[in-house]
């Protein structure tokens, strides 16, 4: 029996889909059997980021409405044998499936996979409820912006009410802006949100480049974001991995390692 992890944020555009794609790939890279589920019905992106758009035959709504079996809708990744994706429908909307249906699918997927990574749509409405229904735990993605932190806080509140344990990923940190005080730093965000930090991901142009190429960044070991995602994947498996320094020269951020003790 595997574990289902929902990747959510409240705010749009903070990197939920990128994080889902990279963590799914990173876990597959570590030899795990992984299925990624895109629950952003109507605005599906995960297939594009993974470069699997042209292989989709059936989707999540087809499974929910009984037009196909779950296994038929799974798309196998082109790089890994043990990495699958359940795509969302592009023509329907969030109300065409219910949380119970998604939950059943996730339960089914957990039987055959070590990890089920659920990519949640932005917002806190039906799409959010669908996505969190089957999850065992949550990863909250935020960026060092007030608006993103505010929305993350809202989502953490909702997840606490449904007793879902959640951990934090701070995405797109720019070391030079943090240094000059123009960007919230990791400590500020952790103080406000008061949940365990799972990892930080530096802002990296290679992420955009590789997303456009349909190739998750994590495959490119020269990218700093890739290393960050690989570290996060190892932490999900339970390894203790120190937080990477934001800048090449280390030392300044060693104090953030204490968050890992909890995380």
């Amino acid at each position: 029996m595997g574990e289902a992890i929902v990747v959510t944020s409240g705010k749009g555009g903070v990197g939920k889909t990128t994080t889902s794609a990279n963590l799914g790939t990173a876990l597959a890279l570590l030899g795990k059997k992984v299925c990624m589920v895109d629950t952003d019905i109507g605005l599906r992106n995960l297939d594009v980021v993974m470069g699997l758009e042209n292989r989709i035959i059936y989707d999540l709504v087809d499974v929910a409405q009984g037009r196909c079996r779950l296994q038929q809708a799974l798309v196998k990744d082109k790089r890994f044998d043990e990495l699958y994706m359940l795509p969302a429908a592009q023509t329907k909307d969030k109300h065409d499936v219910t949380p119970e249906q998604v939950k059943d699918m996730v339960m089914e997927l957990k039987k055959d996979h070590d990890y089920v990574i659920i990519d949640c749509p932005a917002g806190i409405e039906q799409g959010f409820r669908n996505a969190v229904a089957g999850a065992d735990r949550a990863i909250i993605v935020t960026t060092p912006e007030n608006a993103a932190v505010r929305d993350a806080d809202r989502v953490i509140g909702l997840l606490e009410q449904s007793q879902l344990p959640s951990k934090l990923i701070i995405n797109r940190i720019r070391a030079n802006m943090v240094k000059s005080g123009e960007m919230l730093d990791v400590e500020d965000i952790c103080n406000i949100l008061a949940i365990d930090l799972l990892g930080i991901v530096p802002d990296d142009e290679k992420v955009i480049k590789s997303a456009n190429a349909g190739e998750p960044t994590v495959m490119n070991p020269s990218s700093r974001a890739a290393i960050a995602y690989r570290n996060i994947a190892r932490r999900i498996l339970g390894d203790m991995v120190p937080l990477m320094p934001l800048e090449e020269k280390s030392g300044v951020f060693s104090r953030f390692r204490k968050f890992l003790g909890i995380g």
Partner: protein
Amino acid sequence: MADKQYITIKGVKDGLVFLLDDRCEFSALLDELRYKLENTHQQLLSGPLVHVQVKLGNRRVNEDEKERLRAVIRQQGNLLVQSIESEHPAEMAAGRLALKVMTAIVRSGQTVEHEGDLLLLGDVNPGGALRCTGNIYVLGALRGMAHAGCDGDEKAVIAASLLRPTQLRIAGVISRPPEEWISGDAAMEYAFLQDGVMKVDKTTQLHRLRKESVFFKGV
């Protein structure tokens, strides 16, 4: 005087406790109180200053009746009324006796509402709100909105370990924290109303505003 006893007077370590019956007529209570103080308990009640706690049981009294009780007891020069307490549920909720202690992080989109005073152990994040008819005390960071005295009590205060609110309201007064509020030091602060204007000061100064009579032991 009636053979029924409505009032029991007990001596405790730091004064006297008057236990008043909660089913008889209020006027009967006053009569007996007057009678006891002036006649039967004369010797017991003379001497140095004694603090009195009045316990009303399940009876509800209004401010006027409380004042009449105080007046009767005050006639006996050496008695000082420390408190008048009722165990009536409505009284408990309405009065300042009801301090609600809560442990939580009030996150964005969440609101805590309470009749009476509230003590929150935890933070209030931006977008979160506290709304109370009484005072608000936060052992943690207040970064969201707090409304004290929301039924119009202008004496209510808002105190926090870290006062960094998005907005503060006391009774009908709304205030955004101006720059000078942000003192930058780690002192605990509270907000209060002075002539209808919101002010912020260190919590150590709060006792000057309240001017409550405090009974210290061991002086």
